[in-house]
């Protein structure tokens, strides 16, 4: 029944999907945290930049960003991502770049809303007992903020997993591209689709369940 799978590297394609997800997740966590720091910080210019970045990137389709990294950045401006000779690696890295730039806007918003859930009274009380800024931040505000941010960040991670399929637009050999190819060449449309749907359910559902459970467990009850 499943002999149509022969000759296709199904696991390899899903492995590319996972790699795209993890690398972009790390990248967008770093850049998203920086953006969040800018948006909640006291410097007006940085706040303005953070707001501008998030509002711009959130409103552009990911497809446009990914296509731009390939057609605009790479083919027009000659950005090679350190892989000028290897087209495949180059497109993979460009996809990671695009996904990172896009996802970090959502990471930033998740973190910022986490900080905003901490009641002002907490920080005021901390200052009242004589803690300085660093102590207020590391002992009182951030521990509470991190706990309430697990759930929203899990949502972002799941969305990122699904969003990696857009890399198919610039020919990165991940799951959606293989699915397209297989459907064109083989006759079993329903079965092939079921296999890929099952693969994505396997990737996203456990992440959601586990992180959702963790998020509920660590969240501060108010």
């Amino acid at each position, binding site marked *: 029944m499943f002999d149509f799978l022969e000759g296709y590297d199904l696991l390899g394609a899903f492995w590319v999907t996972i790699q795209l997800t993890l690398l972009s997740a790390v990248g967008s966590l770093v850049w998203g945290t920086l953006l969040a720091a800018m948006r*909640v*910080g*006291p*410097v*007006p*210019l*940085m706040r303005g*930049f953070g707001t501008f970045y998030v*509002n*711009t990137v*959130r*409103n*552009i*389709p*990911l*497809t*446009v960003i*990914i*296509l*731009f990294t390939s*057609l*605009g950045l790479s*083919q*027009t*401006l000659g950005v090679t991502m350190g892989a000028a000779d290897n087209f495949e690696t180059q497109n993979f890295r460009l996809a990671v770049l695009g996904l990172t730039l896009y996802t970090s806007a*959502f990471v930033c918003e998740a973190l910022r*809303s986490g*900080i*905003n859930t*901490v*009641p002002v009274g*907490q*920080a005021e009380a901390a*200052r009242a007992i004589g803690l300085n*800024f660093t102590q*207020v931040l590391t002992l009182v*505000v951030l521990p509470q903020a991190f706990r309430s941010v697990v759930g*929203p960040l899990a*949502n*972002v991670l799941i*969305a990122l997993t*699904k*969003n990696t*399929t*857009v890399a*198919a*637009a610039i020919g990165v050999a991940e799951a*959606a591209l293989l*699915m*397209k190819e297989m*459907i064109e060449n083989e006759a079993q*449309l329903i079965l092939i*689709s079921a296999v*890929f*749907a099952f693969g*994505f*359910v396997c990737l*996203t*559902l456990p992440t*959601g369940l586990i992180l959702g459970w963790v998020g509920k467990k660590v969240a501060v009850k108010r």
Partner: protein
Amino acid sequence: MSSVLYDAQGPRAKRRNVVFTVGFLIALAAVLWWVFSALEDKQQLEWAKWEPFFHTEAWSTYIWPGLQNTLKAAALAMVIALPLGAVLGISRLSDHVWVRVPAGIIVEFFRAIPVLVLMIFGLALYSEYTNISTEDRPLYAVVTGLVLYNAAVLAEIVRAGILALPKGQSEAAMAIGLRKGQVMRTILLPQAVTAMLPAIVSQTVVIVKDTALGGGVLTFSDLIAAVSPMSSYYGANIIASFTVVGLIFIAINFALTTFASWLERRLRRGKKSTGAVLDPNDASISGTMGTGAGGGVGGI
């Protein structure tokens, strides 16, 4: 300006702010200079490459037809997905296990799968089992994918909106002798709809963005698909074309987002509307709207 993190600032903090501002300005200027010189280097800043967008030809030949298709797909998807999502969301709240569980499975399944996979499936399905013409097929596939995914997301929004209502509402309705259907139709839904409106409008942003997949991966002739022919016709003005297309998307979605937050503020202020009833639960509602926007994140 004070927040959770810091108090109103004194002279020392203000001086430090100035230092940060200057440092950040320098970094920003360096990046902008790098971008500018890269563009200049590849002749992307020539007036000839940007000029076409100041004439009607580019708009009437490439952009407007593409934009029309984008908006058409988004509108169709929203109109079909909304009732489907409402039915699914209400089914998930049913008292009968045989209604609740299948609805739950459908919703969780379609939320777990990328829209693109659904679109690819739709495209192949229509070419194999129907005789929809080749040029119409991508539109059908895009709308199918969007409907399946967004119906599931909207179902969650509807469910959360109904669950966020105070329990007293349905209890009081049942106490005066209304039946289950009547309680849902006349008491819960009207209140939930107003509470859900901002989340639904935000979901429209996701739908508009997701239509771009049709042009990017399938052969749907939308705004994205217009970029390639447009830039090759006007002499490789890729950067200019992407800028214009990006700005159009930003304009549409920014308008929708602003509308959504205006609605939210208005509903929150509302005195006569059910907003007043919902007030104590505002935190939990906006929380679920967060997941609605999480679904928003789920979009592409």
